[in-house]
């Protein structure tokens, strides 16, 4: 199976006048196969969205990027090459559909602009068909509507339709269900999975919601403080987490089955992006910490899993 996206040693610094102010991405290594979904899970500030932004070539000018991004048959691509395929071969949907659409244009006008840029002919018919394919039964009404006239679920469907206008090779979905009610979010997840099965695009699915990530992903990458700490098949990561952070995160999910007051907690907080991190970023919160943890941890291969940790054994 061919690889659609391969990111190696991606690092991002923010600099002011050549001075590094912080390094929010410190080593992202991920790979997505054709037609498959990689889920990125992590907490606030760990670098999930920044990773997507870097892939799309949309980092601000104060950011300095290292490492390489290979995409489909383009090989290694730089920022300007990415600009040429952004929105056609790679498309993206965002967390908050209300703010992703421009409130003063109708959905139809905005979709038409995208379709024109993609050089699509017979725009009206294509838009109607696309909106139907995302489960919007009354496409004409949707096209004539302003964003505030549609529900969050309908808007998210419209945004999915926009992202799929050009039949992309890779869809990046950044927290696509976070702003939606649980049941509506689930419908959107089911829709995305159905469309993916039918149209065969690969997907990078980013969320803080472990359950949502587990539901749609083939592979999962857990990010902590700008670094991938564990990757592997979704089922394996969920059922037998290896990295102490992954174990803590999964143990923190409340449920009726767990006795009250006994949730696994990770002491302290996610380090601020301004923290100067040496060695393993999780070490200061880790109960399994050893002396060596102040050095950069090795990547340990455990079966089909990769774990960045001094403590776990292969």
């Amino acid at each position: 199976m061919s690889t659609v996206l391969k990111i190696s040693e991606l690092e991002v610094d923010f600099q002011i006048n050549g001075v590094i102010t912080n390094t929010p991405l410190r080593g992202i290594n991920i790979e997505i196969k054709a037609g498959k979904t990689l889920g990125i899970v992590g907490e606030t500030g760990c670098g999930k969205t920044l990773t997507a932004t870097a892939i799309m070539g949309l980092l601000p000018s104060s950011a300095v990027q290292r490492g390489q991004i290979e995409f489909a048959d383009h090989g290694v691509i730089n920022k300007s090459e990415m600009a040429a395929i952004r929105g056609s071969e790679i498309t993206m949907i965002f967390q908050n559909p209300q703010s992703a659409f421009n409130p003063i244009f109708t959905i139809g006008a905005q979709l038409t602009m995208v379709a024109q840029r993609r050089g699509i002919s017979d725009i009206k018919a294509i838009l109607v068909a696309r909106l139907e394919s995302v489960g919007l039964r009354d496409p004409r009404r949707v096209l004539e509507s302003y964003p505030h006239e549609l529900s969050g679920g309908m808007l998210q469907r419209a945004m999915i339709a926009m992202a799929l206008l050009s039949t992309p090779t890779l869809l990046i979905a950044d927290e696509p269900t976070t702003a939606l009610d649980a049941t509506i979010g689930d419908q959107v997840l089911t829709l995305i999975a159905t469309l993916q099965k039918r149209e065969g695009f690969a997907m990078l699915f980013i969320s803080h919601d472990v359950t949502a990530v587990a539901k749609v992903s083939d592979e999962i990458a857990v990010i902590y403080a700008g670094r991938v700490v564990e990757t592997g098949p979704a089922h394996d990561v969920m059922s037998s987490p290896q990295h102490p952070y992954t174990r803590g995160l999964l143990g923190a999910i409340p449920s009726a089955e767990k006795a009250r007051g006994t949730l696994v907690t990770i002491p302290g907080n996610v380090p601020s992006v301004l923290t100067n991190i040496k060695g393993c970023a999780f070490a200061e919160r880790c109960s399994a910490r050893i002396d060596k943890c102040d050095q950069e941890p090795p990547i340990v291969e455990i079966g089909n899993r990769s774990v960045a940790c001094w403590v776990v054994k292969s």
Partner: protein
Amino acid sequence: MLGGEIMSEIVMQITELTKVFPLRDSKVGFKAVDSISIDLYKGEVLGVVGESGSGKSTLARCAFGITEPTSGGTIILGQSLVGKSRKATRELRAHLGFVFQDPAGSINPRMSVHAAIAEPLMLAGMDSDSIDKRVNFLMDRVGLATSQLSRKSHELSGGQCQRVAIARALATNPKIVLLDEPTSSLDLSVQAQILNLLEELRRDFDLTYFLISHNLDVVSHLSDRVAVMKDGVFVEVGSTRQVVDAPKHPFTRELIRVYSGAAREFDLDTWQDGPMNRWAFQNVSTFLPTRKIEASTKPLEFKALIDDTLDAITIDVADSTYTLPELLADVDTDAIVVVRKATLVYEKYFNDMTEDSVHLLQSVSKSILGALYAVMVERGVIDIDKPIAFYLPELVGSVYEDATIAQALDMTVAINFSEDYSDPQSEMARLDRAAGWRTNTTGQDLGLRSFLGTMTASGEHGKAYQYCSANTDVLAWLISEVTQTPYQELLTRYIWQPMGAHDDASIIVDSEGLSVGNGGISCTTRDLARFGLLIVNHGRANGEQVIPTAWIDATLAGASADVESADYLQALHPGGSYKNKWWITAGASREIFGVGIYGQYVWVDPTSETVIAKFSSLPIPVDGVHSRKHMALFKAICAH
């Protein structure tokens, strides 16, 4: 506490609490909370779970005296909040604590942590030494260092802010604490810290929590009892184990499924969706009430001459090239039968189907009703230009008072009806509930008749095409009423037996035994092909005229150009229209077809004299991509 032990004392009693917000365009207003009664017991955690707009926050605000309820009220520790003096209200409020979702927003950004926690104590008239002592105690209990007392909210993390908010809520030693989405803006690992803290404080200080959240995991983890709220009412209340392990209400079941990450299971609310529909569409009569449509004693037999070369044709659609078997698999085909010039040339079954299995037709059922109406008109039973209420006076006052039978046949009734299959509030979902196709716990729309009577007009009839399933149900009811004969018997007598059906078919009926004309018929694939053959053969079968030729010609000619069409129809079939419950392609070969959601078709090409009957179990009801693939599939077969 609870769980079989003796119930402890009631600390809060909520009685028939209702909150109505006035709306500009409505005399009634919006009822956010609808007559809710519940008691809170000392030391328990009552969790209210619901989605945005369910009314849970309004309920809590009214119960805790933040918002004035429209009617009903709360008794807190034996005292009513209503009609108290300011002083008495303040004293009573000292027994209540509040923690809200956004901790940074509920702490004054100009106040230090110390000032924020001290404020309620000052209001209670405590002296400054005692305040300092109390603040230090609280800081320790919520896990914050006293070194942070001088900080302001923007200098704290989200978790720390929420700890301050909890300390402030507990400052006056309250008995009952409202927790309104207390962890919703926190990261998972921080949420776990706060949930553990809340449980520890509840035990140590003997607190009672009124917890509200959209997150079922949080609610079920912390609560003794769970109330599930939807549209202003509790749809289910019970002990947490009871609600989580044996949910009764469909909404609760759906929530639990979503949070468990599990795939949907087969039930009355999911049977139409993939993959449950694969079995369900072949076995409708095992879980819904049906009536028999009887086979002919002289079935029409086909000559069979299977054309294997069809398997080799290639079809270009949606940027890909498929062979026929590939495309059939791609559209989740259950069965296909192709009859050309009275000869069976292609027949394939999948997913446990055989030539003897029946399959639900969904809206292809509508096209069969169209044919029955042709016979009824020819026999002079009805006049289709009469308003529907002329024959069904029960419908006076509804949209069907003015709309004619012909307009219902051609789908040009201007009706307030959303055919949105995914929206549980749409009229289509109401129709499904009325027909018994979905669980109906609303107490409304009990049966098709009462539902159809509530439909209203949206404009002038006959001007524009508007697909609406209710129009077909009303016609099935009408013809059965006029003839005083059950709909299934009319179909048996005038269509199924004369056309030479080989097998019995069936139709789903509602709770009153009324046929669901819009989509309830199940039949074999070959019998559906026999029905299509009637069109090819100018209405004749077994040497008899079954349906009038003139009607077929009128149908093939399509709707009048004056009728405004719909974009999705024009996108699929430029110049196409809907006439007499059939879809008209306006294509070169004058094809017409009947179509049902999830991929059911009867396709008739009068030029090549080909009929295709095809069943599928697609995962979603409608979408343009699948429609296009089907059109390409049918045209390629007919052109071969």
